[in-house]
């Protein structure tokens, strides 16, 4: 048959067009999937590298091992730990007339829309949807073991309303399915008015009247802070998200008016809702349950029926009015009055136009409320004045301003704590506080011993909180009536040294009287100190303290260098590193809150601040509007680049470097083997394989409440592409960090860390973006659920324990978001200003213990994620003082430094400056952004070339201390394999290319033939 008889011209034109389209789409798809392979492979739980053993070896290639044989075992163990966290982190806030525990099998009516839609955790990158078959909702939690009989008429009514989408106008989605991004819509309160309850619901109360339980839910999430204005149109009286809506009030009134014997409230929130209404609605008991994760509700109902005795303590202050903290005066969105003077202010650098000032200084959370209270009792400094009073009827009154103090928590039993002795060794900077705890009640239980210190304050001198937490410990389970335990609690005096940024520029410890005290929370401890100082209710105290629970110790000497040297390196002098993070560096415009004059220094709202010329210059110096990546603050290196890339002279294998010190010369030999392209690709989170040194590809995954989007492997030992099989079982969703903090249990946090480590081995990955350790500076920060507390000390100690637990299994925890990233509004690039005392004593402290190393037994965290924000004018990733002087110099940190997720090197994260400052990797998925910039510059800029090599070394060094080495021996080889989608795209491209070629050929033949026919005619 003649070829011109096959088909016709139209057919071949159509086929050419179609095949061309398929060819281009195939090529584009192939390129995109290759670039995003790290993420895709993680999502699909597959790998594109396999390990080939090339020699005979008897070495056990598993350096970090699991304790479990099957994935169901490790999952169950993780669920058990998560349950214990909830059991110990739930806080009994009030319990009038021993309303709790309820008798087992009590008939209970649960109120509020949230009963059928518990918020298990927050939203955003840290948001996780629990496996439906595994999640313990309220119904399961009540019916498990016949704990409670739940009023199903009301529960099913709520469920029906949710399933019917009847709340769509308010909430759009249920919280179970809205674990996406933090957004104003998620912050609406879709409560249902009791007026709408059908009669079968209201008539059911009489059958379930042993107790009424109201679940108050408030969510939080990445990307948006909580709403400080009315959340929904139909809420007329609500002024912000953390107070009750009208419909919630109506529901509470329904409870109050109902036939119920007891009224209980569960706080299913990650922030601190206002609770001044508890008495108004005759609430008998209130429990903080936070975000319970997939199993936490089981622990909550166990607490409700007394199977578990609550032992949690609050890690945040509950103010009567959430706007009353001085930090709230400067929270939210602030734009420089002269923002138009900032480079790219209307474009890609627009984030540089935002600022945030921490004018409250050190007076964050309880440090403010308790210090002001102490000054009220002492009647000094205008503490009683109306300034800053939000809930007081006359002047400033602690009892009216604070509902529940930091550290407070109750139990179903009673404990007696006796301060046996305090031994202060000023010379060696240590104290030992010995406390005996006795269970005097009739239930077994655990108690927390909290040790606070009051340092001497001189008006006009260094600011000092009237109390600060310096140590804590949790008892074992003490048996009822007789259980007793004596705890010797070590206090490191460094933890209450003052950072004097104005005079000595380092930590100092002044002379004078210091008070050590114990108590059920900061307020109780302060009252004990005040009692020791002779104060009583007649002086304005809200109750008399116990002087026997406080101890006075006088420091009689002063040496300005006594506290000025690093713990990690006693030769390293600590000095000011954040002078430009203090706005007063630029124009002395801020008066920080001082207890020397409460009303005169109450933080001004800093709206419409005009940046000085020097500040503008500092900001603008980081950006280059030409797109050439040549910011003023960076000078490219002009030295000859003497770096060997891709050497084949040696055949070092990365696993051979395990145990080698960072200074070992062998690193240079190994680094010489790596090609430039491998180094550049490796800059993307260190995910890519490096074939030249036989490093397997790795993954890093979001936390901190889970290994998000991760599933268990069938065998933890399978690390090679040809071995890995993945189950359908998602990894466990733990409770929120606010619940972890409520445990006040360092040992349990270590176990939680180990559990995350186990899950890492079973498929989570090498890198884990958690835990979060920023500070609850205000109650409205969207991401407070990912952070522990308002207090840097407890946050720091818990973070350290969790990190070390995870590291013990070979995980690299990227503790985040380091630091001063304490709100979501304008988080990307906001210029954050604070004085160095607050930085050191609060915000840095929350991370410090995890980074600080005192030797092999106290390893430094192997990773950190820098925040999106800027410290003053400098983005965290560009802040060399932070990475070189504080982290490396003071803390001895040698871990990986990753950025937060970024795709635009022009906007904030200039790579040259970042490498120069100490950033070692970019959390990015695209191969076309950072990689292209580095590729373009690295051969012309010697500084960048050397910094890139150093960053590569740092990452590899930390990988040798991680599970990334599992499965490898010195004779192992990493081989690239094609994934199924790569094969599919290759086939697609080949077929469409052949199709295109054939179609074009046939079309051309037909056209020529047709032209011939025309010519002949």
């Amino acid at each position, binding site marked *: 048959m003649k070829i011109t008889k096959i088909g016709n011209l139209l057919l071949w034109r159509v086929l*050419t067009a179609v095949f061309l389209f398929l060819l281009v789409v195939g090529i*584009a798809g192939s*390129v995109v999937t290759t670039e995003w392979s790290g993420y895709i492979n993680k999502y699909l739980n597959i790998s594109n590298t396999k390990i080939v053993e090339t020699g005979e070896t008897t070495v056990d290639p598993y350096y970090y091992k699991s304790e479990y044989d099957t994935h169901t075992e490790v999952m169950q163990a993780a669920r058990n730990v998560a349950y214990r966290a909830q059991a110990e982190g739930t806080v009994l806030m009030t319990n009038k007339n021993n309303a709790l525990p309820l008798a087992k099998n009590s008939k209970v009516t649960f109120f509020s829309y949230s009963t059928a839609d518990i918020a298990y955790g927050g939203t955003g990158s840290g948001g996780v949807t629990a496996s439906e078959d595994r999640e313990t909702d309220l119904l399961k939690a009540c019916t498990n073991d016949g704990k409670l009989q739940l009023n199903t008429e009301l529960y099913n009514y709520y469920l029906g309303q949710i399933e019917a989408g009847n709340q769509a106008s308010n909430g759009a989605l249920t919280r179970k399915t809205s674990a996406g991004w933090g957004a104003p819509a998620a912050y609406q309160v879709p409560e249902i008015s009791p007026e709408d309850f059908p009669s079968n619901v209201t008539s059911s109360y009489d059958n379930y009247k042993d107790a009424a339980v109201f679940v108050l839910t408030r969510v939080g999430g990445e990307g948006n802070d909580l709403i400080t204005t009315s959340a929904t149109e139909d809420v007329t009286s609500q002024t912000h998200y953390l107070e009750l809506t009208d419909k919630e009030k109506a529901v509470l009134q329904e409870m109050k008016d109902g036939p119920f014997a007891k009224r209980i409230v569960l706080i299913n929130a990650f922030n601190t809702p206002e609770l001044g209404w508890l008495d108004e609605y005759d609430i008998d008991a209130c429990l903080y349950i936070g975000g319970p994760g997939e199993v936490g509700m089981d622990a909550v109902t166990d607490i409700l029926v007394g199977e578990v005795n609550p032992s949690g303590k609050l890690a945040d202050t509950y103010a009567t009015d959430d706007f009353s903290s001085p930090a709230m005066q400067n929270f939210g969105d602030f734009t420089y009055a002269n923002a138009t003077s900032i480079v790219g202010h209307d474009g*890609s*650098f627009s984030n540089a136009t935002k600022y945030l000032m921490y004018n409250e200084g050190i007076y964050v959370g309880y440090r403010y409320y308790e210090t002001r209270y102490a000054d009220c009792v002492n009647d000094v400094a205008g503490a009683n004045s109306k300034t800053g009073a939000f809930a007081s009827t006359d002047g400033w009154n602690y009892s009216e301003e604070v509902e529940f103090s930091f550290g407070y928590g109750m139990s179903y039993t009673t404990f007696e704590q006796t301060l046996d002795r305090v031994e202060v060794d000023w010379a060696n900077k240590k104290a030992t506080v010995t406390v005996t705890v006795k269970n005097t009640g009739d239930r077994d239980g655990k108690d927390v011993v909290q040790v606070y210190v009051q340092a001497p304050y001189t008006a006009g001198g260094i600011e000092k909180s009237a109390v600060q937490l310096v140590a804590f410990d949790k008892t074992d389970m003490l048996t009822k009536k007789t259980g007793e335990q004596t705890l010797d609690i070590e206090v490191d005096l460094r933890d209450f040294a003052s950072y004097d940024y104005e005079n000595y520029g380092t930590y100092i410890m002044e002379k004078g009287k210091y008070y050590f005290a114990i108590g059920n929370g900061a307020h109780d401890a302060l009252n004990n100190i005040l009692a020791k100082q002779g104060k009583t209710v007649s002086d304005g105290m809200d109750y008399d303290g116990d002087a026997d629970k406080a101890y006075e110790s006088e420091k009689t000497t002063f040496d300005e260098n006594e506290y000025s040297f690093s713990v990690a390196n006693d030769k390293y002098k600590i000095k000011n590193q954040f002078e430009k993070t203090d706005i007063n560096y630029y124009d002395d415009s801020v008066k920080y809150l001082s207890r020397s004059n409460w009303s005169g220094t109450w933080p001004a709202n800093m709206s419409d601040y005009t940046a000085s010329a020097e500040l503008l210059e500092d900001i603008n110096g980081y950006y280059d509007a030409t797109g050439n990546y040549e910011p003023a603050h960076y000078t490219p290196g002009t030295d000859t680049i003497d770096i060997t890339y891709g050497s084949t002279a040696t055949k070092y294998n990365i696993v051979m470097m395990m145990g080698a010190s960072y200074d070992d010369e062998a690193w240079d030999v190994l680094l010489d083997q790596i090609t430039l392209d491998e180094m550049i690709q490796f800059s993307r989170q260190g995910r890519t394989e490096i074939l030249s040194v036989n490093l397997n590809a790795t993954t890093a995954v979001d936390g901190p409440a889970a290994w998000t989007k991760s599933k268990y492997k069938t065998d933890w030992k399978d690390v090679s592409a040809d071995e890995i099989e993945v189950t359908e079982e998602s990894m466990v969703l733990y409770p929120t960090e606010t619940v972890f903090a409520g445990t006040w249990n360092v040992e349990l946090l270590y176990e939680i860390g180990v559990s995350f480590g186990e899950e890492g081995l079973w498929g989570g990955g090498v890198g884990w973006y958690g835990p979060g350790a920023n500070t609850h500076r205000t109650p409205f920060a969207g991401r407070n659920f990912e952070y522990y507390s308002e207090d840097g000390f407890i946050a720091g100690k818990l973070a350290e324990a969790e990190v070390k637990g995870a590291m013990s299994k070979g995980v690299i925890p990227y503790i985040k978001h380091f630091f001063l990233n304490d709100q979501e509004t304008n988080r990307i690039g906001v210029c954050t200003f604070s004085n160095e005392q607050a930085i050191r004593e609060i915000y840095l402290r929350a991370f410090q213990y995890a980074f600080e190393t005192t030797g092999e037994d106290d390893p430094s965290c192997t990773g950190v994620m820098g925040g999106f924000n800027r410290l003053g004018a400098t983005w965290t990733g560009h802040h060399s003082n932070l990475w070189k002087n504080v982290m490396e110099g003071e803390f001895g940190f040698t871990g990986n430094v990753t950025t937060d997720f*970024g795709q*635009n090197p022009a906007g904030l994260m200039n790579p040259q400056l970042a490498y120069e400052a100490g950033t070692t990797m970019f959390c990015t*998925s695209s191969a*076309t952004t950072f990689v292209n910039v580095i590729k373009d510059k690295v051969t012309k800029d010697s500084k960048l070339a050397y910094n890139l090599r150093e960053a590569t070394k740092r990452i590899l060094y930390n990988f040798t201390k991680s599970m990334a080495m599992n499965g490898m021996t010195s004779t192992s080889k990493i081989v690239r394999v094609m994934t199924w989608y790569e094969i599919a795209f290759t086939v697609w491209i080949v077929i469409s290319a052949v199709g295109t070629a054939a179609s074009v050929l046939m079309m051309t033949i037909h056209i020529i033939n047709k032209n011939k026919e025309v010519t002949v005619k």
Partner: protein
Amino acid sequence: MIAEFFKNKAIGWYLSAAACLCALIFVIIYGVRGGDGGGYSPVSGVAVAMIIIGILLNIGVLVKDFGIGAFLPYLFYLITFGVLFNSEMAFLSNVGFGVDGSVVDGGFIAMCIFLAFAMIASFAACIMKLTKKA
């Protein structure tokens, strides 16, 4: 003469002209948005170069139709799409993750829509005849 020029044009020619116009609007929006700066998606310069080549070829084909000529602008519009798809994945994930202040602006959406129109119109044009006599 103009009437003579249009007399021979088939529907494919008008579709090809529409494709050219859409591609031109794409470039105009790109320029109005501030090119590769302006704080929006860093639209790939390669993509812009490809579409400009496509427009030039399109104009050429509109003036002088020849054989498989109508496929050339189509090919370059497809390549533009491919390059843009690749470069915009980062941008779209930025938007999804709320990174770098990236937002999907009206201009970006309009660019995508006009590129899609250009591809569809040029697809149809290269299947059909541009001139009645051809």
